[in-house]
Structures are given as C-alpha cells and as structure tokens.
C-alpha cells in the first residue's frame, strides 16, 4: 500500500519540480469587446516560446499591438506559443480565420512563417527579427511577408559605451575592470547586440577584460542565473544579457551579488532598480505598431525593413543615478555618431 501511496505523490512533486517553467499570467486582449461592427482590420500576434511576460521582446511586441488597437481602431488578438511545435498551428489558426495581418514575433519562427505564408498568399504576414526561411534554412522573401529587422549592434554599442566608461573609471561597484555578457542562444539577433557591446568596450577601454556566455535558453531564469554567478566568480561586475526570460536570472545574479546589470529590448530599469544601470532598447513595439499601421493604411511593404538609431528603432534606456555624467555624454556622442554614420558598430562577436 505504501508504494501505491508514494508513487502518485512523488509524481505530483516531481512533475512540478521538473516541468515548472510556466510563468502564469493573465493578459488583456481587448479585441472582442471593442470590435466595431463592419469589416474591422484584424491582426493576430503570435509570440515565441519566451511568452508574454518575458519583460522584453514579446512583452514589447504585445505593447505595440495594444497601442495599435487603441490608436488605430483595429481588432487584435494574441497567442502565446508554449513550444516550438506550436508555431505552425498558431500562425495557421489566424490565417485560416482570414486575419488581415499575422505577426510572428521572433527569428525562431522564420521557417514556420515561411511554411504558413506560402499556404496563405492572400494573408499578410510580418516577422520580427527575421525573414521567411525554407526547410533548408535559406531565406526567401515572399510577396506577402514583411521582414522587420533591427540594428541590434547599435543598441549594444550604446550600452557598451556606458559599461566601458564605468569599468575604465572604476565607478561605484565596478572595480574589477571586467565586463560580461550573456546571450540566450548564439543566433544573429542575439549575437549582434553582443558584438556591438564588445566593439564599444574594445574601442573605449582596451584593457577591460571581456567574457561572454550563453544560457542556452530564452525562458528558464535558473539557467541565466547560473551563468551570471559563474561570470561574477570570474570577476565580472557589469553584466549585459540578451536572453529574454532567461536573462532575468542573469540580472538576479547581479542583484544578489551586488553587481551591475544592463537590460535589453525593453527598458528593464524596473526589474532591479539600482542594479540595472541602463538598457539596450530595441523598440519591437514600434516595429509591430508600424506594420499594423501599414496594413490599416494600405501601405504594407513586403521584404526587409530596418529599424535603427536613425529612425528611433533602437536606443538607450533610462540611466541609473550611479552612471556618471561623463559616461552619459560619451553615449550621447556615440548615438549621434551612429546616426551620422561616423561609427559603424560591428556585427561579429570578438570574444565568444
């Protein structure tokens, strides 16, 4: 009898221990209530596995959707993908219902978007951070897909300037002249951020030691935290993460050990005030908003669109009071130089 008892209880415990990655959360989808009667433009947004509460990429995309719904009087819905296998059915579901625009959030959906967009040539698609890619991984521009790209290296460069100035001048807790970064997985939209960051560090403060690592995950905070603790062990005192939900764990490590962190995508100052000194902004919300607007106003354009410093697609987040005025001035100058083309941040990682 004991075994009979033990097994299911153990099962319940183990399942919650092993499988518990879901971060519960309700979100408002205003669509149904506010829909005007006739022929509203309908927009469906599909997140990647990071989920709506990643406080970065997906959260921003959803923000763009909500803003568009408010300003443009369009009807919008959102679906969270819980696993990569969900991308195709989630996109298909909106396309089948005849939505006007289906937005894929993320590079990870490049192949799924290609598959579904080819099946529904009359539905418009937009993919954030990527272009449709066929089964062999080859990019193929489709006449009904807008590819929304960002100059991540420019945002990475800006926060790199702040980190370099602080490391060089040994400001506050940044005393080890060692600066780190962590990506989710080594894919271009992640690595370009880090490449720009390292470019700024090497340009401004060549003596600074640079480390880089990957959490191999965009969801699990624990994995990000482990990398963070390891980096801190190796002397890091400024930690920049490009890893969605997993990156929040990296920030958590900095918080626990009394170090500085740099946010990504969204302004993550609120995640850990006093710890997050600034953020590399990637305004996914602007890209989503603009693409919805283009459908509403019949100006939809397929193929590549770039969001960069010049068109406010990327930028620098709020600065913590610990950041000295000289660092801010240097970042402002770098921003102007990037806009004018005087600085061209690198897109290849120097320290892997």
């Amino acid at each position, binding site marked *: *009898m004991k*075994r*009979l*008892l033990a*097994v*299911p*209880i*153990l*099962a*319940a415990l*183990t*399942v*919650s221990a*092993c*499988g518990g*990655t*879901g*971060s*519960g*959360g*309700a*979100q*408002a*989808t205003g*669509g*149904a209530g506010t829909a005007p009667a006739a022929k509203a433009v309908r927009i*469906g947004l599909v997140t990647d*596995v990071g989920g709506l509460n990643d406080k970065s990429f997906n959260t921003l995309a959803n923000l763009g959707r909500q803003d568009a719904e408010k300003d443009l009087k369009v009807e919008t*819905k*959102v*679906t*969270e*993908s*819980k*696993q*990569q*296998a*969900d991308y*195709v*059915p*989630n996109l*298909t*579901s*909106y396309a*089948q219902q005849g939505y006007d625009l289906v937005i894929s959030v*993320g590079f*990870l*959906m*490049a*192949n799924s978007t290609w598959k579904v967009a080819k*099946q529904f040539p009359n539905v418009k698609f937009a993919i954030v951070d990527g272009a449709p*890619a066929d*089964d*062999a*991984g*080859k990019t193929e521009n489709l006449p009904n897909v807008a590819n929304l790209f960002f100059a991540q290296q420019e945002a990475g460069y800006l926060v790199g300037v702040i980190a370099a100035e602080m490391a060089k001048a040994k400001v506050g807790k940044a005393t080890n002249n060692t600066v780190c970064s962590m990506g989710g*997985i*080594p*894919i271009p939209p992640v690595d370009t951020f880090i490449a720009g960051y390292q470019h700024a560090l090497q340009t401004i403060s060549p003596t600074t030691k640079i480390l880089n690592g990957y959490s*191999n995950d965009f969801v699990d905070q624990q994995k990000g935290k482990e990398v963070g603790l390891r980096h801190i062990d190796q002397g890091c005192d400024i930690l920049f993460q490009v890893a969605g939900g997993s990156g929040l764990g990296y920030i958590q490590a900095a918080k626990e050990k009394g170090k500085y962190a740099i946010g990504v995508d969204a302004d993550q100052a609120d995640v850990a005030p006093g710890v997050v000194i600034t953020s590399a902004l990637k305004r996914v919300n602007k890209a989503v908003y603009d693409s919805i607007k283009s459908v509403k106003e019949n100006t939809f354009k397929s193929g590549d669109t770039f969001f960069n410093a010049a068109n406010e697609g990327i930028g620098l987040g709020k600065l913590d009071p610990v950041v000295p005025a000289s660092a801010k001035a240097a970042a402002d100058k770098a921003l102007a130089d990037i806009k004018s083309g005087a600085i061209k941040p690198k897109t290849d990682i120097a320290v892997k």
Partner: protein
Amino acid sequence: MQWATGPAVPVISVIVALLLGAVFVAATGNDPIAAYAALARGAFGTPYDITETLVSAIPLVLTGLSVAVAFRTGLFNIGAEGQLLVGALAAGAVGARFAELPGPLLMPLVILAGILAGAGYGAIAGVLKAARGVNEVITTIMLNYIVVFVMHWLLQSGPMTAPSALGTPASARIGDGAILPVILPNELVPLSRLHAGILLAALAVAVFWFLLWRTSLGYELRAVGLGARAAAQAGIDPARRMALVMAIAGAFAGLAGMIQVSGVFQRVFDGFSSGYGFDAIAVALLGKNSPLGIVAAALLFGAFAHGGAIMQSNAGISSHLVSIIQALVLFVIAAEAIVRGIAGRSRRGRKPVEAIA
C-alpha cells in the same frame, strides 16, 4: 478493487480538476464556460484542429507507455524525456547521414535507431538499479540533464550542427526517405500535419498490451511490480526484469522522439521537446497504466495543448490555464490515492490483491 481500475476515477478526477480550474478562470475575472467552450472548439472545432490535437497526442501516447510499462514493474521512469531526446538525436543523425538511401531502406533504419538509442539510454538506469540498487528516480532525472546538455553541444558546435540559419541550433534535415508521410490528403483536410506516426503509436499500444498481458515476460514484469519479493520467491529474478523493463520503457520513449523527428520537424533542434516525458507521467497516472487509458489521457492532454492556444486567441484567456488544469488533474489523482490509502490501511491490508493473470 475493480471499481478503481475502471474509467470512473480518472473521469471524476478530470471533472474535479476542470471545476477547480473554473475557479481560477473566474478569479481572473473571466467566464469559465466561455473559456472551456473556446478550449473545446480550439481542440476539436474543425477537422484541422482535430488532426492537430492528434499530432500533439502522439508523442504523449508513446511516452505514456514508457512511464506505464515501468510503473507496472514497480519502477518510476522520470527519464522518458531524456530517452525521447536520445531517440530523436539518433533518428535525426541516421536520417541525415544516410539521406540518400531510398525510403524502404532508410525508414526501418531510422525507426530502429530511435528505438535502440532510447532503449540503451533507459537501460543505463535499469542496470544501475539492478546491479547496485541505485534509485531509478534519481538516475533517470540526472540522465535527462545529461542528454539535454550533450544535445546543446551536438547542435551548437558539435558534429550534428547544420550550417544553416534556421533560427535555432539545429541538425541537418533528414532525407526524404526518412519522413513519415502525411496520411490525410490535402483535399480532405487542408494543411493537415497528421502523419503516419499515428500508426506507429497504435502499433506500440498493441505491443504494450500484448507484452504485458499475453507473454510470460509481461506476467513476470507485472509480478515484480506487484511484489518483488513474492516474485523472487516464485523464481523470477526481479533485478534482471527491472533492468530489462527500463530498456523497454526507453524504447517506447525513443520511438516517440523518432516520430517527432520523422513526422513533424524533419530535424532535431534545441528546445525540441517541451516536456512530453514529464507530461507522460500525468498521462500514465491518469490512464491508470492501461493501454486504452493512456490513449484517452494522451488525447485529453493533446487537446489541452492544441486547444489552449486557440482558447487564448479567441477567448482571451491565458493558455497557461491548461497547465493549471493538468496540475490539478495530478493533484486530484494523488488525493484520490491518499483517500484510498487511508481506507485500505484501516482494513489492515486485507484487501484482495488485484489479479495478476
């Protein structure tokens, strides 16, 4: 005891879990009836949705069998996840390496690769259990981690890394001969992804039933599960049976991985499984470790998986609700066993033992 093995208890468990889930929905200010209606419509509303629910259920059937066959032998296989991944890696490697081979040659090779790799991986925990008495719960959990990290290496910078920009570290595409065909014509259900893996899953269910209830080995496995010492008295070597059953469990899970590669993704990539091996524990428990029970439970969880996303888009309720319902199902089942355990103890264990044969 008969009442407990029938469908009544699981069905009640699910109903109670859905009622409790409704409380959660109401607590977030939404309408539970609308939520469940959207969930059901999402899972079964159109022929396409039904086929997607089936596609989601297939790996759960096989990993459910994996957990159940170990349960029946008194072992707790938490390693179905790792065994599935090993099976997927093997199938993906063979399918890509011999991509030029014609289907009739390549397909059996890929199936065999998946099954054998899973079986071998499961056998590690089984042998450790048999030879040194190492708790299989611990070893299978740890083996899960090992395969996940080996997989990162294989796919990111190892021999299986494909030189392409698919968006995520991934292996090369398997050959056409290794792909399980879609079994419904496009004219019947447009865009359906329902693949021939469903036939393999059905076959596996039949094998599970035949093995456990129609062979002497199955009799011995179940005897060990009901009481290892009694079985030993009857001349069955429990240690060897335990080692063997973990290999069998691994084979079922490995086949699940192979089917996901050949039927759905055509390659292996990071984040390949979203915890089929863990959901399988719930599937096996809910299905009372019986063949039909597992199929029914896998279909239910498959419906949750596919319907949940649609529920979110159409009713505006977070698809995380289905995770809550799945957890509640487990809770209710565990609670039911507690109640039954207390009742059983008060009768001083004089309850008739479930018939073996």
